[in-house]
Structures are given as structure tokens and as C-alpha cells.
């Protein structure tokens, strides 16, 4: 959706259009540009009241068309159309919209958006690393060993997920500030890891449980140590399940806003930036949606890549 559609059309179209239609005509004051307005179902004046056939005016017009309607047109083409108008008194043409214009604009306009994406990625990857290492080890222990209070312990690792982030916000700020990690991606990923570790433990435990112990035992008989058996046999078999688990951690930290709002100031993560842009620019719905889509995209792509393995998370490893 272009700026023009955002401000001048109501109701907003449900399905976005990929094209815009224009008319240029001429009277004594000069040339006039109109654009098709779907809510009026008619061509409406667009841009300057009138413009002349000189380089300055045409450059301005080209820029205006690009900004307001997201359509690109060369000055050459505009001059060609003006010649046609000279002959026939009017010309109608339509242009393709530049689909990425809003996204590019969003990253240009919104303060610190590119850096926020980097921050977000860093937070997400660190969270995956922490939660998968610790959670994976925990899950393996829960899957393979018997010890007293196992089921209670397994249940209790979920307790950390019981508290809403808001209720812990102030202590979290104080503790992270004392550790010197306030407003840093690492601090944020530590906070996310707490919740993700417990989820990872549950997911990886069921992944490991679905791999028969006898496969490891066979490896140990045929020449590996216990660690080697894990490395040669269990890990390759568990990998898809672990990847799916990583996806959960990724999405969990990539989407999180509340803790991120509280725990960052100058190094916000991307969801925070989108959130702030939403609050700060109430009319710019085209930019906000572009930002939100950019926010959702990695999660969607990641999920699509890994969807085959999601089923394995709950113990469907094929043996």
C-alpha cells in the first residue's frame, strides 16, 4: 500500500493492488496529473496543481510519484507522455508498484532498525546456544538416567515459566544492571534462556527417549566409549528433533517484546523497534505493516524449513 492509498482511500482495500493508473492532461496553466482513487472510483488530482515541461518540474514529479504511489517512472517516459498530451490533449497510463518500497523505507526511516535486526539475531542465536546446550544435556539426563525425584524435578523445571515477564521486570532490570548486562544482547538472551531451557529440556528429553538405548549400547560394544556412542549414534539421530527445538527457542526470543522493552534502552531488539514505530507513527500503517512483516518473515521461513522435523520433537524419531 502506498502513502497515497493510506491517506486518501477509505475503506482500505483488503487485497493490495500491484498497479496504479494515472492521467495527464493539459490546460492553460500547464500539465495536470491525476491518479485513480478506488474509493471515489474516479481519477483525483495528484501532486502539484500544475507543472511545466522543464527539467526541474519533471524531476520533482518523478520523485513525488515514487514517494506517494510507490511507482517508478523515468523522466524520459514522462517527457514522452507529455508529447502525447500535446498531440491528443490527454494520456492515460498505469505503472507497476514497487513491492519492496515500503520495506526499504521502513528501514531508512525508522531509527536504528537495521541495528535492531542484528541485535535480535544475536539475542536469538545466543539463546539457542545456551538453551540447547544446557537443555539438551538436561533432556539427555532425564531420558537416560534414573534418579530419585526425577519426575518432580522434571515438572519443576517448568516453574520458571509460571511468572509473567512483567511481574519480574524490575528485579530483572536491577540484577542485569548489577551484572553490567543491562541494555546488552547477552543480558537479554540470558533472560530468555531461563524460560527456553525448561522447554528445551522437555523437548529434547522426548527426542532422546525415542532413540532406543540399545542403539547406544551396540555402539559401545562395537568400539566406542559412552561419549563416542552419543556422538556417532544418538546425536545424528536426534539432530532433526534438536533443530526443531532450536526453532522454538529462536521464535521465542525473536518475538519477545515485553522483557525487551524493559531491559533495553539504546540497543533495542527488532520487535521493540517495530512496537515503538507503531506507537510513534499512528497514521503510517503501510510502514508499520512492512516492519511487522519483516519481523514475521524469519520465523516463517525457519518454520517452513524445519516443519518436517516438528513431529519428531514429540518422540517420532523413525528407527
Amino acid at each position, binding site marked *: 500500500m502506498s502513502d497515497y492509498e493510506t491517506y486518501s482511500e477509505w475503506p482500505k482495500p483488503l487485497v493490495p493492488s500491484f498497479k496504479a493508473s494515472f492521467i495527464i492532461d493539459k490546460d492553460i496553466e500547464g500539465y495536470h496529473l491525476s491518479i485513480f482513487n478506488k474509493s471515489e472510483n474516479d481519477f483525483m488530482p495528484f501532486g502539484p496543481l500544475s507543472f511545466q515541461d522543464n527539467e526541474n518540474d519533471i524531476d520533482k514529479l518523478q520523485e513525488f510519484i515514487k514517494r506517494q504511489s510507490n511507482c517508478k517512472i523515468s523522466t524520459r517516459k514522462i517527457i514522452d507522455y507529455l508529447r502525447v498530451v500535446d498531440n491528443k490533449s490527454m494520456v492515460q497510463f498505469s505503472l507497476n508498484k514497487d513491492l519492496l518500497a515500503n520495506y526499504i523505507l521502513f528501514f531508512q526511516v525508522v531509527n536504528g532498525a537495521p541495528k535492531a535486526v542484528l541485535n535480535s539475531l544475536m539475542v536469538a542465536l545466543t539463546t539457542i546456544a545456551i538453551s540447547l546446550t544446557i537443555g539438551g544435556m538436561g533432556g539427555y539426563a532425564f531420558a537416560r538416567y534414573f534418579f530419585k525425584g526425577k519426575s518432580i524435578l522434571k515438572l519443576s523445571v517448568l516453574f520458571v515459566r509460571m511468572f509473567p515477564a512483567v511481574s519480574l521486570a524490575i528485579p530483572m532490570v536491577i540484577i542485569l544492571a548489577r551484572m553490567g548486562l543491562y541494555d546488552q544482547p547477552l543480558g537479554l538472551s540470558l533472560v530468555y534462556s531461563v524460560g527456553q531451557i525448561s522447554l528445551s529440556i522437555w523437548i529434547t528429553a522426548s527426542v532422546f527417549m525415542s532413540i532406543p538405548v*540399545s*542403539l547406544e*549400547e551396540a555402539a*559401545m560394544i*562395537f*568400539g566406542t566409549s559412552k561419549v563416542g556412542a552419543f556422538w556417532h*549414534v544418538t546425536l*545424528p539421530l536426534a539432530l532433526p528433533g534438536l533443530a526443531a527445538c532450536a526453532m522454538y527457542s529462536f521464535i521465542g526470543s525473536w518475538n519477545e517484546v515485553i522483557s525487551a522493552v524493559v531491559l533495553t534502552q539504546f540497543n533495542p531488539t527488532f520487535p521493540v523497534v517495530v512496537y515503538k514505530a507503531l506507537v510513534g507513527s499512528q497514521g503510517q500503517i503501510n510502514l508499520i505493516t512492512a516492519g511487522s512483516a519483516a519481523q514475521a518473515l524469519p520465523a516463517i521461513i525457519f518454520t517452513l524449513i524445519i516443519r518436517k522435523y516438528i513431529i519428531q520433537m514429540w518422540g517420532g524419531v*523413525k528407527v
Partner: protein
Amino acid sequence: MATLELVDLAKRFSKKVWGVKKMDLEVNEKEFIVLLGPSGCGKTTTMRMIAGLEEVTRGTIQLDGKDITDIPPRDRGISMVFQNYAIWPHMTVFENIAFSLKLKRMPGNEIKQRVQETADMVKIGDLLKRLPGQLSGGQQQRVALARALAVKPKLFLMDEPLSNLDAKLRVIMRTELKAIHQQTEATSIFVTHDQSEAMSMADRIVIMKDGEIVQIGSPDDVYFRSANMFVAGFIGTPPANFFITQCTINNSKISLKYSDFTLELSSEEFEELKEYNNKNLVLAVRPEDFLLVPKDKALFTNKILVVEPQGSHQVVAFNVNDTIVKMIVPAETKVKPGDIIGLNFNLKRLHFFNSETENRIPLKSEFLNDAN
């Protein structure tokens, strides 16, 4: 090729639960030993201790005179076939078989040759590039077998390897396993709960119950000279029939009184039974040791309850004193449910057990049976 010795081996799982209470066993070179017993008797635990997958609570395991009780499984020079095959699903058949050879850093062409050799031996030579998921159960079983054979182990362990196969394949694999053993001559230990499997494959059978050895002996030993009532009732299809009889001795006759019959035996032939005068004595009769005789010469008569044709023979069941007794008659004998038949025993093949200790009462005449 190796000797294995288990000395006072025991395994305790928790305070009160013993997997294996006491196990003393010597396995000779090239021998095929079968551990046999009902589920929960500790036979698999014993095997897992030999393999090193289970820690030993007490006792030692010696392979070729060397104490291997506490060394890790990979250094024991053993290999094992698992009940669920345990072949690695992410490796091809070739990689599965070559796994241990690669870890031993054997040169590549040697590995190839060895893998092909063993794969051919178990008839999967043309499946080497497949993944286990693309194989049938029987083929997976063969892969597990090839993997175990490829290392040329001192000791070859098999944990109920045939129990996941269908009945027909099981019998085929049984024969092939025995042939492979004769070819490789590896000392083997085989765990099963299927007594016919044990009888057909073993050099010696070790019968276990509740974590202890009940009897060690050749298939003939355990069948014809069962050490106690448990063995007699476990071995054989159908197993031996038991009659708890009252023993009385007068003159030269020993008479065993049961509700339906009184069996008279000469005290010369069965002089070992003399000390059971006026005591209970358990008489055991194998199904094939019943004789069908005309009613006037019969020890007792009975009405047939069920006839189960087996092709080569028929199993006839009848009711004696409210217990089902099963006997085997030749296939050509015409019998049908409801028939009244006259029965006698083959006196040379009777087994006697002490009714209190349940142990066998050995007879002199048993040595004569060997000649038959």
C-alpha cells in the same frame, strides 16, 4: 575362540531385587551355550554383564583367563546381536557392518573385503548400499548378525535374536545360525526363552530360574535327565505330565497310588525309590512315553478331551483328576474326542522327583537309556 568363566557372578538391582543371585559357569572353546529360562529369570542380565552393559554387583568374569569384569565393553573382544537388532538407522548396511572396523583404523580396502565377506556369509551381499529402513525384519536381523560377525570376536553374544522374527523365518534362521557357528567356530552364548530353539541349537543348555542356574547340560541331559520338576515342566512341547503319587512298598513290589491308577514297579529295577515308602513321590511322564494299549491290558482308561493334529504327530489331551494331561500319538492313529482309550506308561522312560525338594531321584536304569 575363547573360554569364558563366570565365578560367583551376581547382580542386584535394588535393595531387595536381585537380577542374578549366583552364577557359576565355564564355557569351553568353540562351544555354543544357550541360556534358557522364563522371562525375568536373569538370563539377559547375565548376558549384559558379560557384555559390560551392566555393572557387576559381585563376582568376576574371565575371558581366556583374563579378568574382564571392570573393563569397558569395547575392550572386551566381544560382539553382540540384540533382540531389537539395534542397527543404526542413519547408516547404510555397509556403514553399519564397517563401523567397528573403521574405529579400529583398519585400511579401507581391507574393510571392504571383510564387509563383503561377512555380508555374503549371511546372504545380504547385495544390500550393502541400502538403509535399514528399506529392509525387512529378517534382513535387518541379518545385518545385525553380519555386524557382529565382522569383528571376528572372541565371544559372540546373542540376546533373543530370533524372537522378533515370524515363526517360519525363525526356524530358517535357527539353522543358518547353527551353520554359521560351525563355520566360524566362535564361542557363543545365546539367550532365549524358547525351549525348542535352545534344544535345537545348543551344545549345552543352561537353564535358569529366579536368578540361579537350575541345570547345565546337553539337550539330551535336560530332556531325559531333567534335574528337577521345573526343568521337566519347562522343556518339551508339550512338557512332562506330573502325578503326585503315594508310594508303598510290599515284598518285591513298589506301588505308586494315584487317584486313577496304581502303578506297580519291581523293586529291583527301581530300588532307589525304596526310601520313599509311605511318602509322596512325583511321577513325571513325557507325552511321548504314554502307550496306547487295548483296554483290558491298560493301566487305566480315560476319555479323550481334545485332539490337536500337528502333522507329524497328534497331541491328545485328557483329564486326570481335574488336571489336563497331554500325550503324543503317531499321526496315523485314529483318535477322536470322546473316545475311551486304554493307557500305559513306557516304564524305561519314567522320571521321579522328590515331592518336597522337587529334585530328581536318579535311577540306575537311566544309564541304560543312553544306549537307546
